[in-house]
């Protein structure tokens, strides 16, 4: 009998006899499923958060901040700087409303937060309020008004992102909001393919300036570039201009960096949990496999006595352990997907000090990572019991029990 058919025969026996060790095998599967489900679930929080930020940043857009500011909230750009920026080379031109002459697609914006109660707890949360100029809708083409109407320029009216509408209280169309001494009316809602903007409230920057005592100052400028390659031209023109003191970034890069702290926390916690739980699950698997080997002692010894090699025994134990791990891994990944994918929530983004609404995102890559992790656990849990099984002294083992 050749080596391969030995391996197949012994492994098949091992797999067929798993139901006899139902309790312990189920415990192993459940343990590994738990580990994988948790790992995938925790990492899906980070993925969803990252997706919301990344969807916001388009490589066709550039964002101008005052140099040294690393978030929108901390930046200040005066009115004359904003005028200079809008005239820089590299900016795409287009009509901001039907029938109007093309203008540079540049939107100077204000970014502040206002206290709005969270639906889940009723306590105030820092909801971002963005004051924009007409070109803002041209630089974010994904933005679509889903209900109500566009706010009128020059009036105290706001548009509410769908994410914000879902998570915060009192933002339905027609609601009145009082910030400072002014009252604002919600006139419409918008979606933006899950991007960051959906967490925000939008209004006319010119209306926001006086109520926040900003004079003629803004915080950032968002521009649409002529093409992806026009970025360097645009950046050079601004950074070499002695009248300006600004930093220019691709919007995609900027927003990719805006969730650093939270992503770091989630990733570190996820890894820590995975390591600790992985250790626990490996012990569980080791326990199960040792009992499986001892339950099959006589069988293994008989096989060895009639001429099966130690390699076949090793492989059979390893395969059994990997099969259990695979079942557990797939089950765990599926559970995580079932319960967590698309789960909507909002949290405080420490880097911008404002709320971000997003959906947990169980990506295919996470599912694969979860199953691979399960297989690694199975491998680790099977190795030592397999070696023990192969080393069993045949005569003593036959006598046992």
């Amino acid at each position, binding site marked *: 009998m050749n080596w391969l058919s030995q391996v197949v025969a012994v492994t098949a026996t091992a797999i067929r006899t798993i139901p006899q060790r139902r*309790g*312990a095998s189920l*415990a192993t599967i*459940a*343990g590994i499923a*738990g*580990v994988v489900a*948790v790992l995938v*679930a*925790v990492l899906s*929080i980070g993925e969803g958060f990252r997706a919301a930020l990344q969807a916001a940043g388009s490589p066709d857009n550039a964002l101008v901040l005052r*140099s*040294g*500011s*690393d*978030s929108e*909230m*901390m930046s*200040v750009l005066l009115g004359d700087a904003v005028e200079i920026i809008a005239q820089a080379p590299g900016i795409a031109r287009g009509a901001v409303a039907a029938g109007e002459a093309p203008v540079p697609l540049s939107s100077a914006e204000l970014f*502040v*937060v*206002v*206290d709005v109660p*969270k639906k*889940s*707890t009723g*306590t*105030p*949360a*820092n909801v971002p309020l963005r004051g924009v100029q007409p070109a803002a809708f041209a630089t974010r083409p994904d933005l679509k008004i889903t209900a109500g109407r566009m706010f009128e320029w020059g009036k105290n009216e706001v548009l509410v992102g769908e994410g914000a509408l879902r998570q915060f209280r009192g933002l339905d169309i027609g609601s009145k909001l009082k*910030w*400072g*001494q002014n009252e604002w009316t919600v006139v419409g809602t918008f979606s933006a393919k899950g991007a960051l903007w959906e967490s925000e409230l939008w209004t006319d920057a010119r209306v926001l300036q006086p109520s*926040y*005592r900003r004079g003629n100052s803004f915080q950032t400028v968002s521009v649409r570039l002529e093409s992806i390659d026009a970025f360097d031209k645009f950046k050079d023109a601004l950074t070499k201009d002695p009248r300006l*003191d600004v930093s220019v970034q691709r919007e995609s890069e900027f927003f990719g960096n805006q969730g*650093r*702290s939270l992503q*770091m*926390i989630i990733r*570190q*916690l996820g890894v*820590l*949990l995975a390591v*600790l*739980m992985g*250790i*626990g699950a490996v*012990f*569980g698997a*080791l*326990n199960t496999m*040792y*009992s499986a080997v001892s339950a099959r002692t006589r069988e293994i010894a008989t096989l060895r006595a009639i001429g099966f090699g130690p390699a076949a025994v090793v492989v059979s134990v390893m395969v059994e352990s990997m099969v259990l791990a695979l079942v557990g891994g797939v089950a765990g990944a599926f559970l995580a997907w079932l319960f967590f994918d698309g789960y909507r*929530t*909002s*949290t*405080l983004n*420490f*880097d911008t000090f404002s709320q971000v609404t997003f959906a947990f995102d169980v990506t295919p890559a996470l599912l694969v990572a979860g199953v691979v992790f399960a297989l690694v656990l199975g491998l680790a849990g099977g190795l030592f019991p397999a070696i023990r099984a192969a080393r069993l002294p045949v005569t003593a083992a036959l006598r046992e029990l």
Partner: protein
Amino acid sequence: MKFWPLLWGSLRRRKARTVFTLLSILVAFVLFAYLAAVRVAFSAGVDVAGADRLLTTHKTSIIQPLPASYQDQIARVPGVSAVTHASWFGGIYQNPNKGFQGVFQAPIEPEGYLAMYPEFKVPDDQKRAWIEDREGVLVGATTAKRYGWKVGDRVPIQGTIWRKKDGGKVWEFNVRGIYTGAKGVDTTQFLFHYDYFDEARQYGTGIVGWYIVRIADPAQTAAVSKKIDALFENSPAETKTVTEKALAQGFADQIGNIGAIIQWIVAAVFFTLLLVTGNTIAQSVRERTSELAVLKTIGFSDGRTLALVLAESGLLAVLGGGAGLALGAMAIAAGDPTGGFLPIFYFPTRDMIAGVILVLLLGLVAGILPAIQAMRLSIVDALRRA
């Protein structure tokens, strides 16, 4: 204690299994300890907030500044025993990846602020040196350790919001003191002179971020808050006064169910681990049915058999769980896993006690069913089965 060798013998019967069971219990309780610390971190200091401290912020949002002139007006409100203020600085040390932006950096009134937060412990000579040096900064021990700063160091911080009058972005400070605090006190803050900051800044002179108010009688919280807010009603900067605890709770709520979900997940894992180890312990007793029957044959009473089996599971739980809790406490003391993003990260005493109770419960629950089985074992049946 004369049964000790018997107990020891049964644990050594399957050494590998005993070791793995112990280690799984250990891991479960390390996880338990971490869960407690993470819960505290996400609740952002709700447990340690001072009951007699109120915070007065701008009504629209805490990011909106308030005039510095409010201080005297608030101080005159009956029931207010002290008032001081702080502002958000948000600078960068070296480069954004160092994570210094997450550290609470604030221009404050040195004496007033320390009097407001007596839980910040500073050696007297350092305190004096800090108060006397206009460019001095008082740094929490955790932050000092993280960036390797010592008293006497000069640290350049790049302002992100605030610039100096000459347009410079870099603010330099002298580390004059390092403060410590009991468990749960935020020892990450970076505190410097408001006077120096206010004179040197390019714009925004005469504004502060928020006020911290101490009230004489914590029972009067609601009344005093209302009086303070009434002072500034219909002014350009209306205020909102809440207790420090409510503000901390508000921030915890802002982080929201992310924290809750992580805790829920870890708790599920913890109990799964307990279930699996409990099952292993029970299984190892079941395998020894015939041995137990022999013990009973030679005269062990039912009660003694029960005690023996319970003692075995209890010993496993106490050894593994105790080591796990100790290891967890040590790991937590070594610092938070994110390298400084969670300023409050410790193992609360309450959870430590809960952990010990859980250890004992594990021993009891895992052992009780097989122990009762062992107690009820009929000698004849058991011997025949083997």
